[in-house]
C-alpha cells in the first residue's frame, strides 16, 4: 500500500455472495479467483482499506447455526459467528463456564463487541487480539468444516496458520470452537499491562484439584503463545505455590519480542509477576 493512503475509498469492487449453507460457503471459497469470508467485517474492511483487492466476499451471516452457542455437560460449543456481545451475555455460557462470560464483558469496546465475532477475531490473526489467547488458555478445539467433512483441531494448530486467512486460499472454514468439559475449566486474565502483554490463565479443576494448567500470552509475540503443564494440586494451594509455579512458567514461554511498546526482558519479567498474581487469584476462588 502506498504510504498513508489507507482509506475506505480504496476498497476495490467485489462480488458479494450470501450462502445459506456451510457447503455452499466452502464451495464459494474454493472457486477460482480470490475471496474472503465476511464475519463482523471489522478486519476484512480494514484489510481492504489498505488497498488489497479480492474478487468475492462471502457473507457468513446467512448460514444458519453458525452463531449458535450450545452448552452441554461435555462440550461448550461457540459458533464462529457468535459476537463478543452474545458471548458476554450468553446464559448458556454463564451456566457452564461463567469465567468466560465475565472476561468477555470487557473485551474490545461496545461497538466492536456488537459487530465483532469470535471467529473473525481469531481468523484475523492479529497479534493484539484476545480471542486466540483466551481459547488457548481454555484448551479449546477449532471446528474446521471442509468439503469432505468436519475436523476438530487443537486451537494451537490453528494459531500458526491464521495470518493467511485473507491472503491466500484455504479449503476449510472455521465453523466454531469447542471447549470440552466446560464446567471443569477456569479462566482468569490480566489485561492491565496492555499494550505490552496480556496474560491468560486456564485451569482444569476436578473436585477441588487442579489437573491441568495452560498459560497463554497475547500482545507479546507475532502470534499468541501458550504453554501447558499437567498439575495435581489442591486449588487452595495454588496461592502458596504461585511464586514457584510462576517462575517455572515464565522460563518456559518463548522469548517475547522487543518493539516500541516494550522490551522482551520486561515482558518476560511481567509474565512471571502477572502469572503469580493470577494463580493467587485463582487459588482464592473455589
Amino acid at each position, binding site marked *: 500500500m502506498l504510504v498513508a493512503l489507507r482509506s*475506505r475509498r480504496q476498497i476495490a469492487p467485489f462480488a*458479494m455472495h450470501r450462502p445459506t449453507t456451510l457447503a455452499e460457503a466452502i464451495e464459494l471459497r474454493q472457486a477460482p479467483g480470490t475471496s474472503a469470508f465476511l464475519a463482523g467485517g471489522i478486519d476484512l474492511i480494514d484489510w481492504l482499506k489498505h488497498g488489497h483487492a479480492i474478487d468475492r466476499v462471502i457473507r457468513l451471516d446467512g448460514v444458519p447455526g453458525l452463531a449458535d452457542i450450545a452448552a452441554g455437560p461435555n462440550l461448550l460449543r461457540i459458533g464462529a459467528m457468535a459476537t463478543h456481545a452474545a458471548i458476554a451475555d450468553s446464559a448458556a455460557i454463564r451456566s457452564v463456564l461463567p469465567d468466560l462470560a465475565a472476561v468477555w464483558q470487557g473485551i474490545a469496546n461496545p461497538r466492536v463487541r*456488537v459487530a465483532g465475532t469470535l471467529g473473525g477475531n481469531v481468523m484475523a490473526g492479529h497479534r493484539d487480539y484476545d480471542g486466540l489467547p483466551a481459547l488457548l488458555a481454555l484448551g479449546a478445539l477449532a471446528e474446521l468444516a471442509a468439503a469432505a467433512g468436519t475436523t476438530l483441531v487443537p486451537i494451537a494448530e490453528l494459531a500458526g496458520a491464521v495470518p493467511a486467512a485473507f491472503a491466500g486460499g484455504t479449503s476449510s472454514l472455521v465453523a466454531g470452537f469447542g471447549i470440552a468439559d466446560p464446567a471443569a475449566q477456569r479462566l482468569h486474565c490480566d489485561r492491565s499491562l496492555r499494550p505490552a502483554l496480556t496474560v491468560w490463565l486456564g485451569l482444569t479443576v476436578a473436585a477441588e484439584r487442579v489437573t491441568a494448567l495452560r498459560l497463554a500470552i497475547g500482545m507479546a509475540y507475532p502470534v499468541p503463545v501458550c504453554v501447558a503443564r499437567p498439575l495435581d494440586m489442591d486449588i487452595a494451594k495454588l496461592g502458596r505455590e504461585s511464586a514457584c509455579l510462576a517462575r517455572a512458567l515464565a522460563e518456559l514461554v518463548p522469548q517475547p519480542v522487543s518493539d516500541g511498546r516494550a522490551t522482551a526482558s520486561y515482558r518476560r519479567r511481567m509474565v512471571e509477576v502477572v502469572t503469580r498474581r493470577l494463580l493467587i487469584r485463582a487459588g482464592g476462588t473455589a
Partner: protein
Amino acid sequence: MSTQLSFRVNGTMHCLTVANELTLADLLRDQLSLTGCKVGCDQAVCGACTVLVDGRPVAACATFAFMAEAADIVTIEGLSSTGRLDPVQQAFLEAGAIQCGYCTAGMVLSVHALLRRCSDPDDATIRAWLEAHVCRCTGYAAILDAVRLAARYLHQEAA
C-alpha cells in the same frame, strides 16, 4: 457489482442500488446527504462515524452499506426535528460537552444506545461504554457529566 437494498433511515424507507464496496458512511453522506455522520480516523477507533443500526451503535466507516438491508438506521439528523433538541443533545449542550463538535454526533447516538440498555449507568459503566469514542478536545470530563445529565432527562421523560 452492486446490491439492491431497502432499509429505513430516520423513519424514511429507501430503496437503492449500492455498489458492494460502498461503506455505510458513504451511503449516508454521499447518497442520502446525511452529512452529520462524520468520518474521522476511518479505522473504527474514534467513533465519529457511529450510527445506530437496529438500535446498536456501529462504525459506519467499517460497515458495508449492503449490511443495511432491512435495517432501521438512526443518524444524528433523526434524533430531533427542526427547532427542538432531544434530551441527550440537550444534555451535551448544557454540560459544555461540545467543543469542535466533530465527535459529537457519534457520541450522542452511542449514549442513546447506552441509556436504552442501562437507564442509570454508574461511572464505571459510562467510562467503559465511551471507550468506543475518542474526543481530543474536551478531556472527557464534561462528556461524563453530559451522560449523567442525559440519564436524568430521559428518566424524567419516562416518568
